[in-house]
């Protein structure tokens, strides 16, 4: 007989004998790989589609020139067109315009309109040329024509020849749908018009969003970009396609990395399950392996045998996981969209494609983690002395080798050290590593803690007359803690992560709720249907609103997008009246601020969001220059405020300073405080009565708050889903390890039944063991989860999204989850134990009778 045959016999024999455990391990690996792979596929598909859709708008241009603000004077265009080295310049006006029929959906009521010069666009972005009716080519230049992508037509429920109403400032205009944009990407909602017509209709005469440049052959792009940037000065930025990709990648990177990390949590829990399955399997077969060693099996062969078992499980589980992951990704993207409901990739409809390279990587990840789970038990089995291993009762001693306390202490210490380290590439890499090490260290420490806790309990309760069942249970838990801990690892891992996520999400939610209360102090907010940064309320309309009866106070805001770095998304500039006596009355400031009254005279103060501190290195007390007005001006950073709305940065300044610097007196938001006795409905009715009332976007702060929290909850739905998966895997782990342990304890139960222990007492014993272990797991899981939540709240979140929050613990929810876990784990332990107890007690001790 060849050794391969022997290996096969042993393998199939083990799987036949413990089919359920083998299947559970396979499911755990498959689910872990599936979650990680599906999240990757969804993110990649959404990101690629979003990136491709964005790129399709700038066509085949080599460089694009943008202003620091959203729009700039079109006089730059002829200059660029005549610059040496430029083959073609293509002016573009890009606007997000409000569709009146969609106003009820505050989050999704704008249509992207691109104004192009048809004669130039044909060379650079031919995909944007509208398809006219036959013989009506000149429609592309018509003053009422608009061309819509298929997705836009579907969204607006219009077809060629229909009319389309759009809001411009406080007016409504009607355009004719002259044709379609057949080459737009699936799900891409855009419209195209002639640039001159767009400037006129949308009150942007003389303004452009960007100029796309095609360079002459032989011109060095990089050198030209540097030269042009120098020539244009700080009011403009020159970008390439790669800059745009970087910007898009930066926008969603933290979100994508966080989601991937969560998916890996499921894989980690699965890995632990494989590890515990393998450990139990090896421990159960300790005497069998010792016999094989006695019969001539070498250490090498034994090692190979056990690792092969793990590898085969890894191969099958990972392959199943890839298939399952693909199916989950395809289903999720159909049901939830590419951003899983978070609105991170708006306006794209990606489709999943099988990425062979990613599949190979995730397959290898699944295989490697499974093999890692097998290596420690394999080494223990190979090193065990056959004479000792043949003796029963040495199992727990053998298991102790899997979790040496020094290993736990090292993991926990390194985790602590990692929490002090800064981010790498703006990602909380050390934060995540600290979480992983905390988990591993916590699990490795479990046996010691279990022994300590249950010995203490046993000593304490021994003063009283304990029942046999409780004595047996506590003695086993105290004296065989390693076996207990292995069953508990899955619970500990999944519960602690659940606790950590729950604390983090609650802290975030409560902080956002408080923050919304601070940033939305007025009763009503009114916006004009602005076209990008332009338009809004002119002085006369501001006066009309201010003079309406029923309001205690009326504040006007001006917001604008400003670009500070070509590689980063724009920041938002808020100009508003900020309380001069104490800015905290207006803004949700952190403690990092210049004290009230300590602001020097003759400076223009600004208050920056936490993201500005992280991303741009802004510090309180520093003077910085910002492109506000025709040139840049100097401001003093007077404080840092919490902003959960914009993770890429925002700056607040006094409206008066803004108006003085820019001469721009229009505003785009009005905040209204109701007088006592005035209802919101009556106030809204009054506003609607105004000549421009129909074009106003009016929101109650309560609705905005509710909507924000609804979006928040939707964003975290996928997080909860992933956590639930981890918990299910954890419970599978309990089922697998309890089942394996009760099977291994069949002789113990057989003997107990012989000496007069009732069947129900054994069930009680198993349920009590499961319950007590889970209780300990829950207590320790809570401590571990709380520690992890501190890392999430105070390290991962600020480093990923650049905002801080206060810690809040959802006691009710945690108690409920703990209760559910406790009951589920006790029942799981009981059900798993029934299998062993229902067997023949004579057979259990058959070597004797």
């Amino acid at each position, binding site marked *: 007989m060849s050794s391969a045959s022997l290996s096969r016999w042993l393998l199939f024999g083990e799987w036949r004998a413990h089919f359920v455990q083998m299947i559970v391990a396979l499911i755990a690996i498959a689910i872990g790989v599936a979650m990680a792979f599906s999240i990757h596929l969804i993110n990649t598909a959404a990101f690629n589609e979003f990136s491709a859709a964005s790129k399709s708008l700038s066509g085949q241009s080599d460089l694009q020139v943008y202003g620091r603000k959203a729009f700039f004077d079109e006089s730059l265009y002829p200059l660029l067109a005549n610059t040496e080295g430029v083959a073609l310049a293509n002016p573009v006006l890009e606007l997000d315009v409000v569709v009146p029929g969609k106003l009820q959906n505050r989050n999704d009521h704008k249509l992207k309109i691109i104004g192009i010069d048809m004669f130039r666009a044909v060379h650079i972005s031919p995909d944007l040329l509208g398809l006219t009716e036959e013989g009506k080519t000149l429609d592309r230049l018509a003053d009422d024509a608009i061309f819509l992508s298929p997705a836009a037509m579907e969204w607006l429920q219009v077809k060629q020849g229909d009319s389309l109403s759009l809001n411009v400032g406080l007016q409504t205009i009607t355009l004719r749908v002259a044709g379609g944009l057949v080459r737009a990407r699936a799900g891409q909602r855009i419209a195209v018009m002639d640039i001159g017509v767009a400037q006129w209709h949308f009150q942007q005469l003389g303004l452009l969003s960007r100029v796309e440049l095609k360079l002459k052959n032989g011109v060095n792009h990089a050198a030209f970009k540097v030269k042009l940037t120098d020539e244009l000065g700080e009011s403009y930025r020159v970008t390439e396609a790669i800059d745009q990709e970087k910007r898009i990648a930066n926008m969603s990177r933290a979100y994508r990395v966080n989601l991937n990390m969560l998916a890996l949590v499921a894989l980690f829990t699965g890995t632990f399950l494989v590890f515990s399955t393998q450990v139990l399997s090896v421990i159960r077969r300790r005497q069998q392996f010792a016999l094989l060693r006695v019969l001539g099996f070498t250490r090498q062969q034994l090692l190979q045998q056990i690792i092969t078992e793990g590898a085969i499980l890894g191969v099958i589980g990972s392959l199943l996981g890839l298939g399952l992951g693909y199916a989950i990704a395809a289903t999720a993207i159909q049901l939830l969209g590419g951003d899983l409901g978070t609105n991170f990739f708006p306006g794209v409809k990606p489709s999943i494609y099988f990425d062979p390279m990613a599949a190979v990587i995730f397959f290898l990840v699944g295989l490697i983690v499974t093999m890692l789970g097998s290596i420690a038990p394999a080494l223990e089995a190979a090193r065990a002395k056959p004479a000792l291993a043949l*003796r*029963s*009762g*040495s*199992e*727990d*001693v053998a298991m102790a080798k899997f979790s040496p306390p020094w290993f736990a202490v090292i993991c926990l210490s390194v985790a602590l050290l990692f929490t002090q380290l800064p981010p790498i590439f703006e990602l909380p890499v050390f934060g995540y590593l600290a979480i992983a090490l905390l988990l591993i260290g916590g699990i490795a420490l479990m046996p010691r803690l279990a022994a300590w806790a249950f010995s203490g309990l046993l000593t304490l309760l021994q003063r009283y007359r304990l*029942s*046999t069942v409780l*004595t*047996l249970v506590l*003695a*086993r838990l*105290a*004296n*065989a803690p390693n076996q207990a801990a292995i069953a508990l690892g899955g619970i500990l891992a999944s519960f602690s992560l659940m606790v950590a996520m729950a604390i983090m999400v609650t802290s975030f939610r409560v902080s956002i709720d408080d923050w919304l209360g601070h940033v939305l102090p007025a009763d009503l907010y009114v916006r004009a249907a602005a076209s990008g940064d332009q338009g809004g309320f002119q002085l006369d309309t501001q006066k009309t609103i201010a003079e309406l009866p029923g309001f205690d106070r009326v504040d006007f805001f001006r917001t604008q997008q400003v670009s500070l770095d070509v590689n980063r998304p724009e920041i938002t500039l808020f100009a508003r009246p900020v309380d001069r006596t104490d800015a905290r009355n207006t803004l949700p400031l952190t403690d990092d601020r210049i004290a009230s009254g300590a602001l020097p005279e003759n400076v223009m103060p600004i208050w920056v969001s936490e993201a500005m501190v992280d991303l741009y290195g802004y510090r309180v007390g520093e003077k910085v220059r910002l492109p506000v007005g025709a040139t840049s001006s100097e401001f003093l950073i007077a404080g840092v405020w919490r902003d959960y709305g914009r993770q890429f940065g925002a700056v607040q300044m006094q409206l008066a300073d803004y108006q003085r610097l820019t001469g721009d007196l229009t505003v785009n938001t009005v905040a209204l405080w109701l007088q006592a006795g005035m209802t919101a409905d009556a106030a809204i009715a009054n506003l609607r009565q105004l000549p421009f009332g129909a074009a106003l976007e009016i929101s109650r702060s309560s609705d905005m708050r509710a909507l924000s929290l609804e979006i928040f909850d939707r964003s975290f739905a996928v997080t909860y889903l992933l956590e639930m998966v981890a918990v299910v895997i954890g419970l599978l782990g309990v089922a697998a390890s309890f089942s394996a342990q009760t099977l291994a304890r069949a*002789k*113990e139960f*057989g*003997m*107990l*039944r*012989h*000496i*007069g*222990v*009732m*069947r129900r007492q054994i069930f009680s014993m198993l349920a009590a063991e499961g319950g007590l272990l889970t209780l300990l797991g829950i207590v320790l899981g809570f401590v571990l989860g709380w520690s992890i939540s501190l890392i999430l709240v105070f390290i991962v979140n600020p480093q990923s999204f650049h905002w801080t929050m206060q810690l809040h613990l959802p006691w009710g929810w945690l108690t409920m989850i703990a209760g559910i876990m406790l009951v589920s784990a006790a029942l799981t332990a009981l059900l798993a134990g029934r299998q062993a107890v229902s067997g023949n*007690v*004579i057979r259990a*001790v058959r*070597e*004797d*009778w």
Partner: protein
Amino acid sequence: MLELINVNKAYAEGRKVLTHLTYALKAGDYVAIMGDSGVGKSTLLNLIAGLDTPDSGEIRINSVAISSLDDDAATQLRREQFGFIFQAFHVLPHLTLAQNIALPLLLNGAPTDRVEQMLADVGLRDRGHHFPRQLSGGELQRVAIARALIHRPKLVLADEPTGNLDPDTAREILQLMRTEIKTNGATGILVTHSHAAAATADFVLNLTKDGLHPAKLERSE
């Protein structure tokens, strides 16, 4: 004390092992049962312990028919009146020696004062806090004997209790078993292949297809 009345038992595949078996043991008897492999010695012990039921016939312990008892009642009977000694000892590895020995007392709700004395009786004085992994095979069987007798059972069933032990240790253990069974006033049934082991009993029975017959030992060991 123990009555076997016309007991019949066949294996699941139909092979008969015990046929019209009838016998009675008095309280205080210590008997060894010998017989060829497969003749039904272990089956007989299972039937006496109430862990298996005869196809026909009756087994009575102190005039109570075991087959009339449900699982709980049979368990209660074993708990109170039986002691078991296994070939592979079956002591719980996570309990100390004292805890292992005290198990029947705990199950019967009795005080555990006798444990120290029992440990001393089986030669394990002052080792109650040790764990089974710290003991040799012979010492483990001493623990098993102490556990089988701690609650003063009426009937002690032992199946090849020295099967895993070397001859010297086996001799010691058999002597100890006899002493303890007699001291405790129990009835003992020892199933064995070993003539030396059987010789420690009051008398020896040979189990054959025809039933239980008194046997005379040939001193071959």
